[in-house]
Each structure stands twice: as structure tokens, then as C-alpha cells.
């Protein structure tokens, strides 16, 4: 952009450069559209076509031979722009003529063949969503199908002469609704019970039951909300303190099914720091484009998340693709901005000051003179104003898409797109508002409809550009979190700890003070050797039943923790405290914790290791094992370089050297006890993927880096993911554990029972006779762990496992 300005300003002085400019290619969006928009649009764009001439599309321009692509000299419209007689020159009516340098650009554009982006048109969008809520009449019910959603959808299908989709069988319904509400597969036991239940109300009861499992519900929907609100436990911005989590607030809001209007209020006008991370965006170190300053991020984020409108284009220039303007984007930004805010167009100041405002003044407006806090409150109230139909439509559309596979409006963040059924959207939105913005209620409403309880219709990609017609729910791919949770649950292989700073149960309320660990750091030597890796270990005995075993570790610049030879924790430094709960992993009798730690960072003259193991016994007694001089340490032998997980058998163990340092003390004293309390609260159930920082598997399965708001997940499986799934040692380790579990289960004593258990646990159904025969042959009379592992792998790779039908 700078280069362009430079050229334009000096080109008339330097003929040589002018030639260079002539050779430059014209960019349709950035060069041509603004000129047409400024000088021609008023009379010849949108619904106007004065003199029968429209610039809406290239075809329109080329009608009547107004232009000859490739030949500016023969193009009539250029001639009109350059006519010396003001009475003939365009634009008419005393409007200023098009500046010569802009005519030059248009000439070059014509000479270059008039490239026109086929997706672009000046024509007005056909559809403008209503601002106010609409109260559509419900059509008459078709027979007994009197659920409000079905009355609308059935009428739609009848009108389009589309047959009703087939009803969903119990197995598929159980799997779909469990994954949609709790994110988890039903256990074999739950599946057996549900299939055996003959009650006509069992589906409604199941929906209620699933919605009442507050923790499971929360930990599934956390993924949706984290994506929508750009919240995560690690990511860009945290490194410089430029970003804050809202995890605790969000978790509690979901757990208590907080009304959505309250959530919106607390996000936009945060009553405390707990929910301020959303509007405070990501503050980057160094110089940042104005379009990514915190006020403009605010404008973009509140618009996208709650209004489903895209202010990203408009925060740089009046949008080419929808109706939002630079002034509107900055109006929202000015609500957030502490200081007067100048409008920047494409990173250049315009000299205009932004006035705090939101784009729908029909409902009310922000007082630009009010202080920031009040402006935010005013905006929050406008978002949840009873006359505001846009915010409620946006959220119910998102909920519908989560359950039904596609929004009533699609894409979800382009709410100015026409819905395939406006009555359905409006009815859901009004119902949501009328009933206290109750998210679970709307989820239940959708899940209890026959529309939801129908077979999904096969989708084909080829019609993605055509106008969409609803035929039934669309299949969805398991999210990264659902896939990982499913494998962890079936194989009992969830990790010991989690990263989200949330209290999963109420049992740790007021328990923080119970943990009283103080700083205690050790290393091989003090000061340490630079670029050195060390081992540390501690043996201990468990002689009576343990109720809770919490562990917090941090060390060096990277570390890995092993319990009885099994990797349980990994971290990236002495301030990367890793917490977990060991639970059943402890053995009766002798146990060993072994830690490998490296010192290679910037301050190689400092290194230390911290580990606290807190044991609550069932008899009420507690014990603390803390890294101190009773630990043994040894240098890592250099010949094992690169073999990260291989622990040498014999090492020159010696007693650890205590390391005293103010920095280390602060790290440990500040956070260890609250981490223990969090793990304690979470220790009665295994961690869920949504509570963990992302990893390479989840990333490759489509969990986004939450630097931006990303509201939809991928629907396909890529080759690289398939390669990962085919080669992953970790996945095989999980599945082997699952195989052992099935084989050792006293309830699955023969091959047929093993096959049933696996099908019920992973596919939520019994195998067919054909499948049973195939697998009996494959597994043999006495299935080996390897054979069962391979079967588990093969099933988790099938479309039936991956796709929620």
C-alpha cells in the first residue's frame, strides 16, 4: 500500500516511474472498486441504473458496448469520463470529475482485460434480515407431530414436496444425542439399558438426564464456547501477558446454565476480571496494524460472536462484500476505546474521529459522552434488548448448527444471509428470549423434535454452492475433543491432570487453604552446569488406601515425570507447573517418581526442580512428599542423547542439592496450593480433552489455534490425520490398554462378548450377524491383546466411528 501511494504521488514528476506504474497490474478490489463506488455507484449501482447503465456486474457494464475489454481507447465510458465539456462529462450534476490518476487506473484496468472477481457485484444484497424479533404463526401439525419445530419443518418439507426423513433408530439416537449434549459416547452398560428400555418416554428422559449431567455437559460445550469466545489455556499473547483467560467464569456459567443474556452482559461489560478476557482481546507486543488494535478487535469480536456479522473488512475500509462501513466498525471500537479514536482507512489516518455508536440505532444508541464503563453497559443492554432479534437469532442458529450439522443461516458468521426457513429461525429466537435465554431449554427443544430424531441425509460437496434445501440433519464429524475423549474413555487412558483453571466439582470449595505446600527446589548442583540434563528420583511406600494423590511438578527448561516407569507429566520449564491427580496409578507398596529435566535456556546459570506429592489417605491422614535433599539426582549420560524416554538403568545417584532462590520461591508459593485444590476438585473423574491445552493430535484433528474466533470445525478427515492415526504410537498404546481392559473384564469371557462390548462401547450398537461372523474368524477363540488392539484401531478408523449420523 505504501509503495502504491509513493508511486501515485511522484509519478507525474518522473516519466520513467510513470512507465513502471503503467506496467503495474491493476487490482480489482483495491484499485477499481473504490473508484467505481465513489464516482459511479450512486446513479449506476445497486438498484439504480440511470440511462439504463448499471455497473453491478461486468456483464452489465459490457451491455450496449459501453466498454471494450483490452482497449481503453475504444471504451465509451472512459470517453465520457474524459469529456472536456462538463455537460457531457460523467459524473453529471455538478459532481466533481474523476481525477486523472483514477481515470488512468480505469484505463489500465480496461487494457488489462477488465478482470472482475466473479463473486463480486454492486447489486444490493437480496436479503436484509429484520432487526426486530418476528413472531411467526406455527403451521398446523402433521398428525401427531405437534412439536413446534416439526410443525414448521414439516410444513417446509411438504411445501417443497420433500419426503419426511426416516426416523432415527434408538442406537443412532443415543449416540448422537450423547455426543451432542455431553460430548461422550455412552458406555456399553448405558447402551444396553437404553436399548432394553420399553418406555415410550425414554428419549425425553434421556435428554433430560444428559442435560442434568452438569459437568459432562459443561466440558463438552466448553469447546464450542472457547472457539466462539477465543478462549484457551495457552496460545499467542500469553507469553507477554497480553491476554487473559475467562475459563473459570465460562466453566461456572455453563455448569449453572447461566442465562445467555447474563453471559452477554458479563462478557461485554465485565463486572469483574473473570470475564474481561473476551473484550480485552490479545494485546501484541510491538507495533500492530490499527485494524488489530484492541478497540478494533473489540468491534470485530463482539460483532462476530454475538451478531454473526463480519466487521473485519469494514475495520480497514467500507466493506466490499457487505454493507458495513468503516465508520460503523470504528463506532463500535470507540465504545471500547479509552481515548479518542481516529479512523484509519487501510492503515492511513483519515482525520475523522470515531463516534461511539452501534449500527442499529433503531433500538437505541450509545451515549458517546458517557464514560467507557457506561458505554459498555449500554452496548450490552442493546445486545440483549427485547427488540433486538439479531443476537437471539445468531445464538439459536449456532445451537441449531451444533446439533443439526448446518445452520438455518449458513455460514454461521454471515447472518445477513437468507435463512432456509426464516420462520424456524425466528420462532426459535423468540422462544429462546421468552424463556429466559435458557440455553439448555433450547437444546432440549431441538433434541426432542422429530426433525432431530431423523436419519441424517447424505450430503454431497458438489451442491455446496447451490441454494441449500433442508432434507434433514446433516452428519457431523467427531471434533478433535470428542475423538480424544472417546478413545480415553473406552481405554481408561486419560492423562492424570488438566490445564483449565476450573473447579470441576464443588468438593474443593474453601479447600485451597487445606493445602500448605511451601517452596522447595533442588538440582544436581548449585550453581548448575549449563546445557545439562539430569535425573531426579524419589521412592516412597503406600501402605494404606489413598483417597487423593495430587502432584505438582516443574523443572529446568523442559522436564518429563515418570511414575513407576510410566510417563505422567511433561512441561517446558521451571515456571510451567504441571499438576495432576495420580489416583489409581499408585501401587500398593513401593512406588517411584523419576524426573528428567534439562537446563538449556537463556539463564543457564540458574536451574531448579520442584515436585510436591500430596497424599490424602482414606483414614483422614495426609502426607507430603516434597523435592528436598532426600531425593536422589544424577547427570543424564550423554550417550543417551536423543532417546528422550529411555531412562538408564544404573546412574551415579547422589543426594540432591537444595537450591534457594527468590524467583523459584515465588513460583512455587504462589500457585502450587491452588493447583492442588483444582486437581482435588477434578479428581473424581478423568480429565476431558476440552480441559487440556491443544496438542499435535488435536490440532491435526481440527482444534483451532484460538488466536481468532473460529466458529466451525472441519467436517472431513485429511490424509495427514489418517497418517497420524495409522502410525501413532500413542494411539496404539491407548488401544492396547483398552484391549487389555476388555480381555481382563470378567463380563467378557468369550469372543462374542468381547465383540459386543467393543461395538457397544465404540459404535453404540450390537454388531450385525455378518460382522460378528467376520470378527469371530478374525479374533479366533482366544483373542490375543494384539488382535483386539487391531480391531479397536480398525473400528476407530471407520466412518461409522468418526461420523455422527
Amino acid at each position, binding site marked *: 500500500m505504501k509503495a502504491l501511494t509513493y508511486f501515485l504521488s511522484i509519478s507525474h514528476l518522473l516519466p520513467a516511474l510513470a512507465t513502471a506504474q503503467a506496467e*503495474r*497490474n*491493476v*487490482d*480489482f*478490489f483495491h484499485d477499481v472498486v473504490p473508484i467505481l463506488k465513489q464516482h459511479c455507484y450512486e446513479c449506476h449501482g445497486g438498484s439504480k441504473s440511470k440511462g439504463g447503465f448499471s455497473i453491478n456486474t461486468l456483464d452489465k457494464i459490457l451491455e450496449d458496448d459501453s466498454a471494450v475489454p483490452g482497449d481503453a481507447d475504444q471504451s465509451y465510458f472512459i470517453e465520457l469520463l474524459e469529456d472536456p465539456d462538463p455537460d457531457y462529462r460523467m459524473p453529471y450534476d455538478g459532481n466533481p470529475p474523476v481525477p486523472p490518476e483514477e481515470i488512468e487506473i480505469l484505463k489500465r484496468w480496461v487494457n*488489462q482485460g477488465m*478482470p472482475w472477481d466473479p*463473486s463480486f457485484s454492486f447489486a444490493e444484497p437480496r436479503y436484509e434480515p429484520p432487526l426486530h424479533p418476528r413472531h411467526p404463526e406455527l403451521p398446523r401439525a402433521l398428525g401427531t407431530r405437534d412439536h413446534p419445530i416439526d410443525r414448521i419443518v414439516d410444513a417446509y418439507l411438504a411445501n417443497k414436496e420433500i419426503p419426511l426423513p426416516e426416523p432415527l433408530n434408538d442406537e443412532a439416537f443415543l449416540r448422537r444425542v450423547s455426543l451432542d449434549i455431553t460430548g461422550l459416547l455412552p458406555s456399553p452398560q448405558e447402551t444396553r439399558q437404553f436399548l432394553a428400555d420399553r418406555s415410550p418416554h425414554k428419549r425425553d428422559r434421556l435428554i433430560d438426564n444428559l442435560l442434568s449431567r452438569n459437568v459432562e455437559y459443561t466440558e463438552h460445550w466448553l469447546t464450542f464456547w472457547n472457539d466462539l469466545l477465543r478462549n484457551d489455556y495457552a496460545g499467542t499473547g500469553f507469553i507477554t501477558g497480553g491476554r487473559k483467560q475467562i475459563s473459570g467464569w465460562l466453566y461456572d456459567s455453563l455448569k449453572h446454565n447461566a442465562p445467555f443474556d447474563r453471559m452477554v452482559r458479563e462478557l461485554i461489560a465485565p463486572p469483574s476480571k473473570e470475564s474481561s478476557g473476551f473484550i480485552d482481546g490479545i494485546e*501484541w*507486543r*510491538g507495533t500492530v*496494524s490499527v*485494524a*488489530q488494535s484492541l478497540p478494533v478487535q473489540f468491534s470485530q469480536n463482539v460483532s462476530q460472536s454475538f451478531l454473526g456479522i463480519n466487521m*473485519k473488512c469494514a475495520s480497514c475500509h467500507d466493506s466490499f462484500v*457487505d454493507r458495513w462501513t468503516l465508520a460503523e466498525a470504528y463506532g463500535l471500537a470507540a465504545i471500547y476505546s479509552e481515548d479518542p479514536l481516529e479512523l484509519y482507512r487501510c492503515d492511513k489516518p483519515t482525520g475523522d474521529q470515531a463516534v461511539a455508536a452501534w449500527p442499529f440505532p433503531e433500538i437505541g444508541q450509545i451515549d458517546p459522552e458517557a464514560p467507557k464503563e457506561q458505554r459498555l453497559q449500554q452496548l450490552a443492554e442493546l445486545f440483549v434488548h427485547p427488540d433486538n432479534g439479531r443476537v437471539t437469532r445468531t445464538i439459536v442458529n449456532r445451537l441449531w448448527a451444533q446439533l443439526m450439522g448446518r445452520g438455518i443461516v449458513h455460514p454461521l458468521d454471515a447472518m445477513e444471509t437468507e435463512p432456509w426457513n426464516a420462520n424456524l429461525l425466528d420462532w426459535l429466537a423468540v422462544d429462546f428470549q421468552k424463556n429466559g435465554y435458557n440455553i439448555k431449554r433450547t437444546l432440549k427443544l431441538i433434541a426432542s423434535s422429530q426433525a432431530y430424531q431423523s436419519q441424517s441425509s*447424505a*450430503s*454431497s*460437496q*458438489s451442491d*455446496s454452492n447451490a441454494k441449500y434445501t433442508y432434507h434433514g440433519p446433516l*452428519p457431523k*464429524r467427531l471434533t478433535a475433543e470428542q475423538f480424544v475423549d472417546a478413545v480415553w474413555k473406552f481405554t481408561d487412558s486419560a492423562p492424570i491432570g488438566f490445564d483449565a483453571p476450573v473447579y470441576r466439582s464443588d468438593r474443593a470449595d474453601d479447600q485451597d487453604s487445606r493445602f500448605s505446600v511451601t517452596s522447595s527446589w533442588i538440582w544436581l548442583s548449585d550453581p548448575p552446569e549449563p546445557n545439562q540434563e539430569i535425573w531426579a528420583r524419589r521412592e516412597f511406600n503406600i501402605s494404606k488406601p489413598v483417597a487423593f494423590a495430587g502432584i505438582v511438578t516443574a523443572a529446568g*527448561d*523442559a522436564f518429563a515425570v515418570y511414575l513407576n516407569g510410566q510417563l505422567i507429566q*511433561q512441561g*517446558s520449564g521451571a515456571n510451567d507447573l504441571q499438576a495432576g491427580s495420580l489416583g489409581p496409578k499408585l501401587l500398593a507398596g513401593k512406588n517411584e517418581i523419576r524426573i528428567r529435566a534439562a537446563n538449556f*535456556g537463556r539463564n543457564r546459570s540458574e536451574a531448579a526442580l520442584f515436585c510436591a506429592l500430596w497424599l490424602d489417605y482414606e483414614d483422614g491422614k495426609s502426607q507430603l512428599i516434597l523435592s528436598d535433599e532426600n531425593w536422589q539426582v544424577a547427570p543424564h549420560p550423554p550417550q543417551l542423547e536423543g532417546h528422550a524416554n529411555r531412562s538408564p538403568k544404573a546412574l551415579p545417584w547422589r543426594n540432591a542439592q537444595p537450591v534457594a532462590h527468590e524467583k523459584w520461591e515465588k513460583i512455587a508459593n504462589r500457585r502450587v496450593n491452588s493447583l492442588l485444590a483444582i486437581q482435588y476438585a477434578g479428581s473424581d473423574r478423568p480429565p476431558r480433552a476440552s480441559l487440556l491445552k491443544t*496438542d*499435535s493430535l488435536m490440532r*491435526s484433528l*481440527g482444534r483451532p489455534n484460538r*488466536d481468532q474466533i473460529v466458529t*466451525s470445525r*472441519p*467436517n*472431513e478427515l485429511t*490424509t*495427514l*490425520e*489418517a*497418517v497420524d492415526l*495409522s*502410525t501413532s*504410537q500413542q*494411539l496404539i498404546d491407548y488401544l492396547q490398554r483398552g484391549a487389555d481392559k476388555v480381555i481382563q473384564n470378567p463380563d467378557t469371557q468369550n469372543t462374542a462378548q468381547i465383540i459386543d462390548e467393543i461395538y457397544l462401547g465404540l459404535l453404540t450398537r450390537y454388531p450385525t450377524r455378518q*460382522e460378528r461372523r*467376520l470378527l469371530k474368524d*478374525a479374533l479366533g477363540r482366544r483373542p490375543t491383546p494384539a488382535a483386539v488392539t*487391531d*480391531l479397536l484401531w*480398525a473400528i476407530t478408523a*471407520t*466412518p*461409522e466411528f*468418526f*461420523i455422527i*449420523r
Partner: protein
Amino acid sequence: MSFSIDPHAPEPIVRRDFLKKLALASSAAWMAGAPQIVRGSGFKHPAAKADACILLWMAGGMAAPETFDPKRYAPYSQGMPVDTVLSTFPSIDTAVDNIKISSGLKRIASIMDRGTLIRSAVQPDLGSILHSRHQYHWHTGYVPPQTVACPHLGSWIARVLGPRNDIMPPFINIGQRLEGIGEQEELKAFTTAGFFGSEYGPMNLPFPEQAAQSVRPPEGMTGARFANRNRLFRQLVDKNPNREYASDYQQESLLRSMDNAYRLLSSKEREAFDIEREPQEVRDAYDTGRFGRGCLLARRLVENGARFVEVTTEYVPFLHWDTHAAGHSTTDRMHKEIDRPIAQLILDLEERGLLDRTLVIVASEFSRDAIMEGKPGSNANDQAAHKGDFITEEKHYGLHRHFTGGSSVALFGGGVKKGYLYGKTADERPLVAIENPVSVTDLHATIMTAMGISPKTEFSVEGRPFYVTEDGKGTPVTDIFA
């Protein structure tokens, strides 16, 4: 060939026809044919010669005056004024008369006649120097933060050109760990296909010597068991009572991906990932460490049809090229790490007749200087570990500040001129580019042009046109093309 199997994926605007053609062409024909030009709107494009690209990434800020652009040599002496230091290595002759580079890069010197050296690459001053921000900019063409997740250079190439051999992942990233190191989140932010979706994302191989494991059945699984497992999978799919949903594109894409994976894992190409298959003397010729082994792996992958391969010296804060202290001795070590493998890679590609169609790029996020942080007039914080006017200890001898005013990029093969020098930096401080400055945007345009991709290639994301070079403004440095 599977393009845009996600209906939510951005649609290409200008090149839809090309993709259609490409999808129809069999991969064999595609491989045999000359690289094709993808035109943006009316762009005049020099004939593209490259159909593969290897980026040798000098992560952490490789000092140009210590490598490809040596200045006046100031040997260490105790108490020397720090502002007398421009280069801490003497310069040596290369195979090209008018090009001298730093001692320590003897073998690279001998192959400088195979490529073009740009000495005038410049980067914006982002106020505060954060390596990962500049790396993000270099790798995506866009200065972070951005309102959408920007695709990596390799993802653009993978997205537009597709795989060169459809068994081979088109974008392979060697040598960079993304877990357990500093700034890992910042690295992940650009080591991604962004809005293109993970189909076009990198296959990450942080340890070249373990690359073979990424395309091999899990440890302890015999070939027979692996094949059996796959047979069982196919049988389950065939016997599946829900098979009637086969028209479902999701199901089809899933099966195709599993199929592709199995084909790769049981293919001959899989051996390309195993550097142990090279004769000992070849391995020795490359093996200066992980980077050297990565170069050997890159050569094997490109020989077997990889499209874009990045090999990095690895970015870990304060390690490798990220010299904030002990610059001279660290650079000496880095010379040893890169000199042999880079030269060997170029010679091997040449010997195999692949150099002309493979663009090899040696680049870094910025240069370094002994006293200047950022560029003249910058407010960036001075990040040298030791701040003093005199060098009192040998460990303070070196270029410890980040410098964005002039750095070097070496290009080999892929249709660039041989033995050509482009651009110039000042001989006295500030060592800024004084001739033909090349921005990141224009460098991208140059790379894309060499690969047959118009710098104006655009995709529509969230209704917004998004270009392969920033806002479609990149202008290739056509001077460097043969």
C-alpha cells in the same frame, strides 16, 4: 487429488478452472509435464521452471555480515570498542568473482556459481522485535496479528499446486519442535495451513533421524500384521450396515484419506523418509547435526516427489542463530552446521538433474548487528545480553542485536540466475540495503513466481479476497530469473 472437500473451505476465485484441469490430470502426467503457470488477474508471468521448493530456514536471525555479506573484519582484541565490530570473520573468495562470503562457509563459497545472492532483503520494524512475529511475517507474508489465520508459504504452494506426487504429502516441515520449547504457541501460529484447513498443513518431522517412524507402522507391528489390520478395516467398512451412506462425501473423503495414508505407508516413497538408507559416506557428508540430516532428508523427499520442504536450524529462544551473547563462537558453530549440508544438497540436486526444477532458498527472519537494534531510528528495545561500549571478554564478541535494515537471501536452482548478485548493503554502519531493497512481500512474489504461482493468486475467505502476497501487492524481482 482432492481439492476443497470441505464445503466451508474458502473457494478459489481466479483459478477455479485451473484446479478443475489439475484434478482431471493424472498425477503421472502432471509430474512428467513442465510446471504450469497459474495466472492471477492478467498477470504477466515469466515461464516458471520450479515445481519443488526447499526452504532452508536459518531460524533466530542469521547475521548477514557473518555469513553472506561480510564487512570489514575486526579480529577480537580485549577492550576493543564495540562499534568497531562489523564482522567477526574474515571474508573468503567464492566461485563468483564479485561475491565474497564469510570464512567458515568454504563449501557454500564453492557453489555460489549455482545461484543468486540477494543482499538487500529488508523487514519492517515492528517496534518490538519478537522472533516469532517476524517469522510469522516471513512465512505467511502477513504481519501478525491478522483477523484470519494465515496459511504458511508451504500451504499456499500445497493448496495451489497440489502434491507433485500424489502419494507424497505436499508440505513437509523438518527440524522444528512445536512442543516443549519457548514461544511454541507463536511458532504454531504460522506453522499451519490457517484457513485452508489441515489438508494443506505441514507434516511435521522435528527429528529427521526419526522421520521414518512417521510413515511406518507403529513400533513392534510387523508388515504382515499391519497389512492384516488394514484388511480388517476394509472388511469392516464393506460389511458395515451403514454402507448405504457411501454417497456421503464425508464418508468418501474419510475413506480416501485412510486409503492415501495406507498407500503412503506401504509405498516405495515411504523409504524416502528413511535417511538410514543412504550409504554411510553420504550420511557423513551431510551429518553435521539435525540440520544437516534434515537437508539429506529434504533431498530424498524432493527426489520422491515432495512439493515444498522446509528444513530449519530450529528456533529455540537464545539458541542456534538467536545469538544474544557469545555471537562469534556460536556463529562459528552454526557455520559448521550449515556449510557442508547446504553445499552438498545443491550438488546432489544438480547431479540428479533436479536443481533446475527445485528452488532452494536460504533465508532468515532478519540480520544482526553489533550495536544497532532494529533499523536506524527504531525504538525497539536493545536485547543484547551485555551492554557496554567496549568488549572486555571474548564472550561479548559478536553480533548480538537484531537488525532489520538489510539481510541476505541465497537462492539456488529453480530458474534463478547462476552466479548472480542482487542488491547491496552499505559498507559502513548502518549496514542498510542501499541498492534494490527487497521487501518480504516482494520476496514472496519472487518465490511464488518461480513456482508458477501468480503473486495475485487469491482465495475468498469470509467473503474477503485473500492474496498469496500481502493484498496482492507483491512484485517479483524478475531480474534474478535466468
